[in-house]
């Protein structure tokens, strides 16, 4: 089976249909808006940091299945993690989808490994990384993130 079909079956059937942590947070400590101006996708990520640990996190927006599933799995993965751990995971995720992570070495990727096939679909890498850029923008209180920045 082709890489993208395998990828879609893993992520779509679950996270696209039933995204985790989908919605809004009241009074988040950090939040940001992410845009992909090339396709019009946008999403909003909001989180509550408690003693440097992500206590609550939510996202919503309009995007393709890859972006939505990536956002859903991201929120599930970073919830309960410290800011530093979430940032380290972000770096690993970005490295993985651009084909720069050696998955045979110890890592925190876990279930996010379903996105590893994306480096065969260069036109769709930006869809998957938008939620992660938006998370970083939220940490940095930047307000917005863009795939074209």
């Amino acid at each position, binding site marked *: 089976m082709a890489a993208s079909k395998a990828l879609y079956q893993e992520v779509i059937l679950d996270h696209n249909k039933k995204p985790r942590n989908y919605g809004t947070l009241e009074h988040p400590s950090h939040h940001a808006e992410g845009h992909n101006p090339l396709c019009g*996708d946008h999403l909003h990520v909001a989180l509550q940091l408690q003693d440097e640990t992500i206590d609550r996190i939510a996202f919503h927006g309009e995007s393709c299945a890859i972006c939505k599933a990536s956002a859903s799995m991201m929120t599930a993965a970073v919830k309960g993690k410290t800011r530093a751990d979430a940032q380290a995971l972000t770096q690993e995720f970005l490295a993985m989808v651009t084909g720069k992570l050696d998955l045979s070495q110890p890592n925190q990727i876990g279930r996010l490994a379903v996105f590893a096939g994306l480096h065969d679909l260069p036109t769709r890498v930006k869809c998957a990384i938008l939620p992660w850029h938006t998370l970083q923008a939220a940490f940095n209180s930047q307000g917005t993130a863009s795939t074209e920045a």
Partner: protein
Amino acid sequence: MNARPAELTRATFDVERVRADFPILQIEVEGKPLVYLDNAASSQMPQPVIDRLVRYQSTEHANIHRAVHTLSERATAAYEEARVKLQRFINAPDEREVIFTSGTTEAINLVMHGYGRKFIKAGDEIILTTLEHHSNIVPWQMLAEETGAVIRVLPISDAGELCLDQFEPLFNARTRLVGMSHVSNALGSINPVKQMIAVAHRHGVPVLVDGAQAAPHMPVDVQDLDCDFYAFSGHKLCGPTGIGVLYGKAALLEKMQPFKGGGDMILSVSFEKTVYNAIPYKFEAGTPPIAAAIGLGAAVDYVSALGMDAIARHEHALLQYATGQLNDLPGLRLIGTAQHKAAVLSFTLDGIHPHDVGTLLNQEGIAVRTGHHCAQPVMTRFKVPATTRASFAFYNTMAEVDALTAGIRSVQKMFA
């Protein structure tokens, strides 16, 4: 219409024979025969055009309009012969009215710089339409920003047709130019340009027609349209990239200022005074894309031999069949249902993002465009961020329509 109207087109157009001329149509993508439905973005090149490029590079290449040696004479003759082929293709009265540009975008920018910056002042008005490609919006916004001119926009209906009744009321004493597409790239709507040009001329206003999506698909006669400018691209017309044409009425071109300065566009240069060359050379500074122009000449020979009327009929049959097939799919919404359409089907699928559709269709070997198609005002008008667009050429078949329909069904099944 569910039955394939094969007999309808076979009588006049042997599509299988035509396909044999296109090497790229024989390749496989993802292990499936290529179904190329992204012709509105760029079309494919037939062997005679490829051969012409090879012959030029192998036996004729040198710089043009320069040296007295044999190769320069050959290259110059071939380049100017291409201009005459293009002149005939659009029935321009005079070959001097055919300017080679890098494409439609540069052609429109040439009019903006050469005509707009000279004749359009603060408070003057330019009329555009909602259907325009960004290339016929952004240059005019740049001009408006620079000069203080005002852009007025003709809206479209829910079907994607221009609201003609609102066109004439847009004119006033300050209207200086109308810019409009002949065929919408995002929706396929064929606009009544001839009728609208007559309206503009009643108000003494010249009209620039963006013909990028029309010239490859129907006969174009600039004298019959009476347009003042007509722009189109080579690579959507089975020619190479990097070449296009601006047709302009000689009287207007002569009044315009050059767009780019350099060699070949001058008669004499001194540091005190430079005298510009005559049209069309005044607008062709520097060494032009000689090979690409000659290739485009071969491309218009190729499509003219097939017959633009026959091409239009075959593509219309594809459009009718594809429209029927797609309309039968539950959850599919066609965006752009104009009465007069080129073979472009823009659509959305309930609950499925166009980029997912594009990626999954590609797994079936089907190439479509997804996104906003450089026409964001159109997307905004229909309240969609993006669409999937299947755009046909004369080498597409009814079987490829079936492949598209089956591909969409399979995407829908995956997301069900």
